[in-house]
């Protein structure tokens, strides 16, 4: 059962190259436009968010990039420093112990610590308050690519199992109570409407384990539309093949038709396998904006296409 309360934390994840950042930004803009105080947390790969909003860069503390929308960049190194300084209270102690040549590899080797401290920062944002109410109405996380997104999601639990007791254990338990709670955290999976990515998403759904309850929906990103119907293509095919380069045009059109058919099949298979809503978003490459230059305006339009109520977000 999907709880109907919208979670305040939304993790957007999926394999690399499927448009996670695009979807995360679109969702965050949609929230901000609805008057919700929103922070977008970028964790994955290359830093894309500043380019979208035309700002210089982003730091570990939130930067205002659009009305109601702040962004921040979360790196494990800064998150660890933040956590340790919170715990031991003295920055100098942190530097002495953790910037130490001997200590570095040791800290690197604590399983799941990198991921868990990043979750910890998300938890801090969740807890942050301003004037007696939560500072952030929505925390949208552009999570690492799936294998890793799942690792991150499970990291607090893994670290709890490892530590069994002690202050770190208690700390991560608090985090897990928020991140593992479907009322407070939701996961949006992004994939492409093609057969292989959809198969992988279905496999991933099966591996979600106890995180399964967090899943709110799947976004099929970069869907295309066909300029002609199969019947229309058949009508002109013979004539087309007599023109120079005509066969290539026929192949392009036929490919589009196949893609559209595959898209429909993919959505149906996903829905059957995961029983969560699937949402199809158009491929923005085919619009008038040159690729690689998507800005806030295009992504805001894209965000408008997300059926928030249906997704329970």
């Amino acid at each position, binding site marked *: 059962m999907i709880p109907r309360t919208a979670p305040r934390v939304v993790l957007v994840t999926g*394999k*690399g*190259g499927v448009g996670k950042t695009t979807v995360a930004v679109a969702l965050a803009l949609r929230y901000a436009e609805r008057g919700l105080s929103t922070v977008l947390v970028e964790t994955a*790969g*290359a830093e*894309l968010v500043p*380019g979208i909003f035309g700002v210089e860069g982003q730091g570990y503390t939130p930067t205002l990039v659009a009305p109601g929308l702040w962004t921040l960049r979360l790196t494990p190194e800064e998150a660890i420093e933040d956590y*340790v300084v919170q*715990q*031991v209270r003295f920055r100098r*102690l942190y530097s*002495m*112990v953790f910037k*130490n040549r*001997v*200590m*570095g*590899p*040791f800290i*690197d*080797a*604590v*399983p*799941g610590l*990198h*991921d868990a401290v990043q979750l910890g920062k998300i938890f801090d944002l969740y807890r942050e308050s301003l004037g007696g109410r939560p500072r952030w109405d929505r925390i949208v996380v552009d999570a*690492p690519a799936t294998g*890793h997104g799942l*690792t991150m999601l499970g990291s607090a639990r*893994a670290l709890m199992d*490892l*530590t*069994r007791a*002690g202050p*770190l*254990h208690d700390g991560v338990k608090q985090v897990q109570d928020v991140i593992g709670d479907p009322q407070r955290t939701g996961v949006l999976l992004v994939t*492409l409407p093609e057969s*292989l990515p959809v198969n992988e998403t279905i496999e991933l759904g099966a591996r979600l384990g106890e995180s399964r309850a967090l899943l709110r929906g799947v976004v099929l990103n970069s869907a295309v539309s066909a*300029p*002609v119907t199969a019947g229309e293509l058949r*009508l*002109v095919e*013979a*004539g*087309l093949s*007599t*023109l*120079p*380069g005509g066969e290539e*045009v026929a*192949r*392009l*059109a036929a*490919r*589009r038709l196949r893609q559209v058919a595959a898209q429909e099949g993919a959505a149906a298979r996903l829905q059957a396998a995961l029983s969560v809503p699937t949402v199809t978003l158009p491929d923005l*490459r*085919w619009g008038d904006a*040159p*690729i*690689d230059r998507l800005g806030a305006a295009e992504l805001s339009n894209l965000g408008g296409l997300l059926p928030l109520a249906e997704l329970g977000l």
Partner: protein
Amino acid sequence: MSAKVVICCGSGGVGKTSLSAALALRLAHGGARVAVLTIDPARRLADSLGVGAIGNEPVAVPMPGPGSLDALMLDARHTFDALVRRFAADAAAAERVLANRYYQFASTRLGGSHEYMAMERLLELAQSGRYDVVVLDTPPTRHALDFLRAPERMSGLMDQGVLRWLVMPAGAGGWRALEVGSDVVSRVLKTLLGEGTVSEIAEFFEAFRGLGEGMRQRSLSVQALLRAPGTRFLLVSSPSAASRAEALHFLSVLRAEGMPFGGFLINRVAVPPRELVVGDLVAACAAEVQPEVTAAIGLRLRGLCAQHGRLAAAHQRAIQTLRSAGPAGAPCWEVPEQDEELLELTGLSGLSPHLPDADALWGAGSSAR
């Protein structure tokens, strides 16, 4: 003598696994004995090579001679266990490590253990004498640093200094390695981790102690292999902004680490179609279709061509940006967007004409054999 090595790097979703397999196939068709190792948990390699399943042991891909192709998928836990058994002083010491809870976490759930084991497996294959070339498909570049530095990091961890420090009680010289007061360090660690965890980790290191030197040597061999004259790093990218940014990031890492860059492999490059003249189409179809019907369809088809033309132009701009960021004169191979159906017919060998052969990778006459 060690085999030549090709390491395909790039962000996720650029078709790295397929291209790695296609490249391995191409080199095998050229007469070399090739192994392709994937660590992509997506398990797609078996599908694209037409073999049932791929596991930790080599599976021969059916192909006509003279070369041969074996495919493998990394099993990190299995590889790690084998490494422990190999370097432990005796069976009992190996079992102590394998049974340690911290080891079990480290070998399966520790970020970076996959990368470390991929390097280990690569070394095994390269030194086995069974192959002329080993092609490695790597995890997405978010782990680029992890993956290149994993062996180094692990050897740093196994460094006797750390071990001594961790397993020796405070006051016996161990804490001194940190050059801060022992009371401070122990207070910080206990505050952070709790006393129980600290002692469990110490047990792990104690059990691992005997393995340290062997594993450190192994790491050094991996580092040497990654920088060997027969090693090539290929950056696989699609012409999209995100994967391009990752490719550039990776390039800077390679440069900083002094690892040999072999060139760019750009996947799914759009090919511009010829412009469609609607009047010509109307004339060509005049015998069978009403002119206005053809004209309406033709207009929409022309729009489709224009879209593809714009995309192809954008791709070329993107590729230029990427190349200009790379070393001058670095080779660049473009793999055109493939028709999925066509690819099913020809299989991965359909990509061969677009991929480098042994001469292109290692210079003319440097037969991969």
